[in-house]
């Protein structure tokens, strides 16, 4: 029973495929899986927008949407109808073809990333040998779409926003890659399925998730920072920094194309949250050996939603950085930390089991983290101030 529930989608797919001639089965199987991905994530997107608006509302002492349907749950439907019925405006001077293609390129590239994410036991579209590399290749393609959107709009805000976004995405992509490399080093594979399998082991009922090691924790932290920047979320949301750039590179988009951008950005968050969960949080594996009876896909989506909640929490809490500070942070803090983390991971690998390697590895990372942060604040003369009073 537990097994059936765990594999319910796989079994369902096989059952459906049995109605077809054998020659068609592989192709139709792929199409079925793709349709599932294309169906599930936009639905999740609709649900999460309500969650985000409600959550931010709670953070800000207000209610959030509560008019459409019970507790405002049907709000995304209203939003969807609104954005689909809006006029699709293309600026007169815009490069119509590029303007049209940009959101499509974004959405396609973002959805491609899901092909290699294992969403449950045996639930992966293609188990590629170089899955992680494929994921990052698709992530890199989104930058082109961002540039296309900004450039084709013939709007200064759009262009500035696009250049900011591209510069930011390139900078943090390096950090994203380097923070994932530690996982590749330790699991010895680029295949996300094997990375999950390597973490799906338990000693004393506790899982072997990489986040529970010093290098894994530092890597997850850096990955989280880079992922936030990569998806343009607060506090790194300056490409669409409302107070300076109206809406960044999609200022000139309206109606359905705007909805596509919105969807693309949100789904990119899901995908990167899913990747983070796969790399550091054990993917679909249960957090305790005793909890393995809960279906694996529920764990995956649970972790995904937890990561999304962290994104929402940060958005409600933090102000945004400035462009140069963002770049400095990427190249002078995150990148050195990632490189050091690589070194620590190597050290961990070649030191024997025991308390010593825990102490040494944690000490190196914590010292570097605190030292670099403190040094940066000192160098820029930042810090709390005292004030004098006149009577």
């Amino acid at each position, binding site marked *: 029973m537990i097994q059936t529930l765990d594999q319910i989608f796989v079994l369902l797919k096989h059952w459906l495929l049995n109605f077809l001639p054998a020659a068609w089965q592989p192709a139709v199987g792929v199409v079925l899986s793709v349709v599932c991905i294309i169906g599930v994530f936009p639905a999740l997107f609709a649900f999460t927008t309500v969650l985000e608006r409600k959550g931010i509302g709670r953070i800000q002492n207000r209610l959030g949407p509560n008019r459409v349907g019970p507790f405002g749950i049907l709000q995304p439907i209203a939003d969807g109808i609104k954005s689909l019925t809006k006029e699709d405006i293309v600026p007169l001077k815009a490069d119509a073809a590029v303007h049209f293609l940009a959101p499509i390129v974004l959405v396609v590239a973002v959805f491609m990333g899901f092909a290699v994410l294992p969403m449950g036991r045996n639930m992966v579209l293609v188990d590629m040998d170089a899955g992680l590399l494929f994921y990052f290749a698709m992530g890199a393609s989104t930058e082109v779409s961002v540039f296309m959107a900004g450039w084709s709009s013939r709007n200064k805000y759009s262009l500035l926003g696009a250049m900011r976004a591209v510069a930011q995405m390139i900078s943090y992509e390096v950090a994203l890659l380097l923070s994932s490399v530690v996982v590749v080093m330790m699991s010895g594979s680029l295949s996300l399925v094997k990375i999950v399998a390597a973490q799906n082991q338990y000693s004393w009922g506790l899982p072997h998730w990489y986040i529970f090691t010093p290098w894994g924790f530092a890597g997850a932290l850096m990955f989280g920072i880079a992922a936030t920047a990569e998806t343009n979320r*607060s506090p790194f949301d300056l490409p669409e920094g409302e*107070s300076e750039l109206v809406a960044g590179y999609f200022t000139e988009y309206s109606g359905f194309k705007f909805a596509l951008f919105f969807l693309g950005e949100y789904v990119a968050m899901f995908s990167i949250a899913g990747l983070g969960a796969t790399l550091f949080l054990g993917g679909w594996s249960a957090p305790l050996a005793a909890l393995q009876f809960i279906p694996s896909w529920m764990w995956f989506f649970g972790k995904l939603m937890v990561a999304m909640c962290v994104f929402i929490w940060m958005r409600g809490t*933090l*102000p945004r950085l400035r462009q140069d*500070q963002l770049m400095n942070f990427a190249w002078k803090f995150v990148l050195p930390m990632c490189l050091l983390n690589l070194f620590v991971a190597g050290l961990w690998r070649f030191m024997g089991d025991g308390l010593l390697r825990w102490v040494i590895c944690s000490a190196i990372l914590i010292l570097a983290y605190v030292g670099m942060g403190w040094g940066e604040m000192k160098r*820029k003369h930042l*810090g*709390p101030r005292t*004030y004098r009073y006149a009577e």
Partner: protein
Amino acid sequence: MTPSTIDPERLEGWNRPPIIEPDGEGDLLEVAMGPHHPSTHGVFRMDLALDGERVIRLKPVFGYLHRNHEKIAETVSYLATMPYTDRLDYICSLTNNWAYALAVEKLVGQEVPERAEYLRVILGELTRAQNHASSIGFLLQEMGASGTPLMYAFREREKILDLFESLTGSRMMCNYMRFGGCRVDASPVWLDAVRKVVAGLPAFVDEFERFLSGSEIVMARCQGVGILKPELAINAGVTGPMLRASGVNYDIRKVDHYGIYDRFKFRVPLGDHGDIYDRYMVRILEIRESIGILEQALKGIPGGPVMDPKAKIRNFRPKPGEAYGRIEAPKGELGFYLISDGGPNPYRYRVRPPSLINLTVLEDMCLGSNVADVVLIFGSVDIVLGEVDR
């Protein structure tokens, strides 16, 4: 983007309205921020010349909200202008009332009963507290904090506005002060309500400060940005928290001894750097001082009338002469200059709006900084467009 050289010739013709050029020919990028820009506090435009993201020129363009305030005041009776003053700085209408009442009282040499003076101080300091809190909220909003600090500030502002409403009948357009006192008396119930709100204020400021002052992002964005030198501030006539953040000890409550401020013990916080962070901190510290004043005033408020019994309401015709009444409004020195020719309405009526005069140094503060900082510096000036454009 690479910094590039600036062609001086292009800056010569800067006064013309900016034309969007298709490909950014030349080295400078002209960006118009506003008047529909979501970031501005109202309908205000900044024309920027950008070199990469560095500000080369900044031209504030205002007047979109011009409502002929001064001319209207010259054509209606003295009292009829009172509600118009509410609409100057619509965040703090009570201090506007006070400054105007003060000017007219000076003109006719009128006395104000003690209870009315106490009520004015209480209302003025409450106004200052809510203005500073919401201006910090707006500043953080510009910083991209997606409204959370703003909503915290507004929660507190709401309580204060409720007090205003129960006393004056209106939340924002209070129209409460009169020449020679106040319009209605405050009930003991109202005073108790004020005591309750004031007792809650320190906790709010502590919470605000705990979340914001120590935040690394706030420090990184605010410290060392938008520096205003004290010399320039004095020369430009900048007043209020902005001037004090630059380290100049000038508070009209201390200098002018207007009202009954001499009876209260309070200190004037001063900044040393004159940057955005100092302006922010000076405002926070001023809220704390205001709380002190409020506590003293609520303790010492006497009984008695709130209106000078000799005050003449009907057929109000001051003798020919002139007067300038000024107060330390939350945003700076708010002054009203009146010339009377003996008629029922002023011959000349002039407002000295702190928002407008503080805004004149905007370009000096912004030059050379990042375009993202411009919004922040603009936010730290704390202006209300109703007062800038009048």
